[in-house]
């Protein structure tokens, strides 16, 4: 069952329980919400993000239910982008998507993706890519509207 343990690394199971950023922060004029849904399993996420005057991503917070992959992914994302320039966050999301869609061909760089690099294994499970992407798509959408 090395495949299974490769997918569900300790870090992922831990994040899926810790859920950093869980619970929506209060909204203000600089924040935007995005609601995303995985049509296959019905999982959903509502993610809120603020963009500072200087263009930095701040206070990502979220709510929702889903599998351990989707919860861990949201949790990992939260810390990763805090304070990052918005353009850099957009590039990060694009890079994440590329790896996850690579069907196991690419891996996530630890320096760049931090804990989220543990999600590399998901890319070999095409049916689970949507789970891992859910929070990232929500952030992308939120940033485009913040």
């Amino acid at each position, binding site marked *: *069952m090395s*495949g*299974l343990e490769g997918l*569900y690394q300790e870090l992922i199971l831990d994040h899926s329980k810790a859920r950093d950023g869980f619970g929506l922060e209060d909204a203000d004029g600089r924040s935007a919400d995005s609601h995303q849904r995985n049509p296959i*399993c*019905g999982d959903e996420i509502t993610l809120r993000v603020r963009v500072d005057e200087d263009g930095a991503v701040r206070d990502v917070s979220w709510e929702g*239910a889903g*599998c*351990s992959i989707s919860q861990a992914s949201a949790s990992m994302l939260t810390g990763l982008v805090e304070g990052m320039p918005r353009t850099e966050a957009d590039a990060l999301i694009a890079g994440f998507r590329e790896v996850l869609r690579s069907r196991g061909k690419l891996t996530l760089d630890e320096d760049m993706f931090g804990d989220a690099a543990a999600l590399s294994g998901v890319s070999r499970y095409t049916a689970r890519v949507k789970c891992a992407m859910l929070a990232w798509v929500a952030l992308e959408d939120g940033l485009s509207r913040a």
Partner: protein
Amino acid sequence: MPALDAGALRADFPILAQSVNDQRLVYLDSAATSQKPQAVIDTEIAFLAQTNSAVHRGAHTLAAEATVLFEDARARVAAFVGADEEQLVWTSGATAGINLIAYSIGNATVGRGGSDARRFALAPGDEIVVTEAEHHANLIPWQELAARTGAVLRHIPVHEDGTLALDAAASLISARTRIVAFPHISNVLGIINPVAELVILAQSVGALTVLDACQSAPHVPLDLPALGVDLAVFSGHKMLGPYAIGGLYGRAEILDALPPFMTGGSMITTVTLDSADYLPAPQRFEAGTQPVSQAIALAAAVEYLDAVGMTAIHAHERVLERRMREGLRRIDGIRLLGDAADGVDRVALSAFEVQGVHAHDVGQFLDARGIAVRVGHHCAQPLHRRFGMTASVRASASLYNTEEDIDMLLDGVSGVRSFFGVTA
């Protein structure tokens, strides 16, 4: 002991010899799509390699032979559900069959069809009754028909144990009810619904009955005329047959009166640039080139089912059902959807949640052991909502599953919570 030797039947299904993640494949996703015996595959290949030709359209030898095979297939599949060949319309599947009915009624409502189509026309305020246990395929087409015509959609609730609330049905079905559509067996609950009772209620108010027989056709002996429904649908790919083929059964009187749905070639008598005259049923509903090789292969599939025997299949699956359900009940933290009392007749299908672990994670864990189950809402969001869930795990067996398969499932499910670190 069941009269059926599933272990021996497995050899007829080439895919079951596959290993998945280095484990023997334990396929428990037959409610989504069934596996195909070699005989079905061979029948389709033989047709394509020896007879393939356009049916109903040519006078040459191959075309004539293909037409005979195609129409014999219709008679064969019709007989499987107790019907005559004129009562069977080929569709691309159950979803297409239900859409056909709903659009045909919509067409009657805007004045299409002959004078005998008038009886199907809906008026604002007319009611369409479905159940809370519908697959989206038997729900959304009615929502859309209601939206187009001003009819109102109502639903028969489901009890906590998964059975239909027949008392509520009796008061819901009224003089305003024009259509009653319901599943023979829900793809989430596995319970055989009381068709006779619902048909009596519908007939007492003159409503049309539409049966979704998708999940019964592969698992229980089926005699649609005896069930008394007006119309029924099923899908080939769920009953050992190919994709892209299904059947719509209709009482002759109903089929002959309904207006066409899709239009095009081979369903007409005379066509001018401005209008067309339509053939009687079933051809009236079969516009364009039909799923010819698939129809012929579906006939081979029902031939296979009949050779094993539908009564033996149902008996075998009852044994699997009980083993699965009793085993699941014994595992900590399992909640079954619609866990009806043991007396309720059902097929070997259980949907459940493992408390504290998301269905997707359960499915992934089982997959690593070669066990294929389905996770998600199974195209039945309202039913999951009724049970306070968004997703569940569903294990569904068929004639080729053994008691060992069930034991492997139970063993797998027992290990889920500890793997994901959930404590009781």
